[in-house]
């Protein structure tokens, strides 16, 4: 194996137009080698186009991209030798059986007939598809097709695996299975580039996240960094009941930016009410204001903003530009 490049992906200024729409509009992306990188963004943000471009399926109109050190346009063949792709829509051949899908892939990757069958057997076992091995893939459930798709992508251990929304539409058990597979692959030294619109998925799985909106990467960092930099930390103030919470919220409204969304209490099972207050003012000040309103605080928790809150803050900012 040749020298490991420092970055699995280095892309700069990528532009891709489809007719009048700019799917990518100057996208820059650095994905460090090894680990999971999550591309996070709403539908239509350009995540899938980014993956297709990096996997040599479409060419950029301008800009450059190198995958594992190889240019995706001028050296596409070298890129294809080191990557695997599993698509947003399962890319299995539904007119063939699960086993035939795996053998076909292995044969195309240069395995002998016997090696191909052995590898297929291993993967069928690993992905819990042994019972369905000789049934046509069109009879599989959505979750099974996705598992087969992933298994096909792993016939050979790729240096870089592209997972385009691997768990969209999956039940929780299948989702966890996909996550386990990704972690195991990364444990063996591969890099995974994952696109998702699920924030919890990025939060749990990704070492680094890039937020994509309107064809550009608008923020990058670890999930924690993003949460810290984008949403303020939050004080969760617990009050004895809804009436208290409403009084407190009204008092706190004077502190906040007038354009900020009003605080709304969330009633808990035990009858208490929770107010999530962004720490835009010193905590002591917030507590004083609540106190002055004549309301008793029965509990207090401090936490980081969730990735959801960070993401909403980011895409809102983007919408104003």
């Amino acid at each position, binding site marked *: 194996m040749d020298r490991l490049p420092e970055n699995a992906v280095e892309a700069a200024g990528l532009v891709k137009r489809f007719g009048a729409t700019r799917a990518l509009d100057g996208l820059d992306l650095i994905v460090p080698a090894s680990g999971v990188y999550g591309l996070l963004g709403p539908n239509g943000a350009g995540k899938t186009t980014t993956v297709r471009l990096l996997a040599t399926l479409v060419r950029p109109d301008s800009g450059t991209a190198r995958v594992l050190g190889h240019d995706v346009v001028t050296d596409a063949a070298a890129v294809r030798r080191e990557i695997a*792709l599993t698509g947003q829509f399962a890319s299995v051949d539904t007119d063939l059986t699960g086993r035939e899908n795996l053998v076909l892939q292995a044969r195309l990757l240069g395995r002998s007939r016997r090696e191909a069958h052995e590898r297929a057997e291993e993967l069928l076992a690993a992905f819990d598809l042994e019972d369905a091995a000789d049934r046509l893939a069109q009879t599989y459930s959505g979750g099974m097709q996705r598992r087969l798709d992933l298994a096909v992508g792993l016939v050979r251990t790729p240096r870089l695996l592209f997972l385009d929304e691997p768990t969209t539409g999956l039940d929780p058990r299948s989702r966890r299975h996909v996550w386990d597979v990704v972690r195991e692959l990364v444990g063996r030294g591969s890099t995974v580039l994952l696109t998702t619109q699920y924030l919890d998925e990025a939060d749990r799985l990704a070492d680094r996240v890039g937020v994509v909106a309107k064809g550009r990467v608008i923020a990058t960092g670890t999930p924690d960094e993003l949460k810290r930099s984008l949403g303020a930390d939050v004080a969760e103030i617990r009050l004895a009941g809804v009436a208290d919470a409403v009084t407190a919220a009204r008092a706190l409204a004077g502190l906040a930016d007038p354009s900020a969304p009003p605080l709304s209490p969330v009633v808990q099972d035990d009858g208490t009410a929770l107010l999530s207050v962004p720490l835009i003012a010193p905590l002591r000040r917030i507590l004083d204001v609540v106190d002055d309103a004549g309301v008793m605080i029965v509990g207090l928790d401090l936490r980081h903003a969730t990735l959801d809150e960070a993401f909403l803050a980011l895409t809102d900012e983007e919408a104003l530009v």
Partner: protein
Amino acid sequence: MTTAVADTRVFARRTLLKLRHTPEQAADAILIPFLFTVLFTYLFGGALAGSPRAYVQYLLPGTLVMAILLMTVYGGLTLNTDMSRGVVDRFRSLPIWQAAHVVGTLLGDVGRYLVAASLVVLLGLAIGWRPDGGLPGVVAGVGLAVVFAYALSWVWASLGLLARTPQAVSMLSFLIQFPLTFVSNAFVEPETMPGWLQAWVDVNPVSLLVTAERALFAGTADVVDVAWVLVASAGLLAVFAPLTLHLYRRRSA
């Protein structure tokens, strides 16, 4: 180059596996030869040649060609379906000879042509067809028809990459196949046709193929009969193979 051959073989095998898994398509390859050969022989035989047995000597090369050529659209249909599914993205992201997907898919359909050809030959023999050219004549005849069918399948492959839906591919190919196969010398001698129709029948490559088939089966073929078919096949390939591969590379890139 060895990978190109190996990759092509994998895709040819894929086509054969699909053929095995979709018996309704195989039914096509069985029913059409049966209908053409048996039905036409007894339907037209008495009127056109005095007896079915006499007519089948003339008809069989025609139904053989027709049965095989009607199978040629399947490669285009497979490619059209592949392009609309995620599976093509996987193939294109693999370190393989990219054209293997097209070349192999079309080559795999040779299996389909051979099933249809065998059926026509066996049915023909059962109802009184007796080729004077013997086994070598029959093998050569089937071989030549398969070569032409492979060349013709590239036309539908181009169509398959241009059309939006499999239905469009079927419809358009039928509109072209119909005059190509029926308006030929497959069923009757062109002598009784009006001049303008005869002019087309004479230059129709399917007529050239049927003429060569009759000569091969009868054991009277000369080089010219066969050469015309090979020239027509080469012409189809020279135009439609590069066009198809160009369309394949262009698609979605």
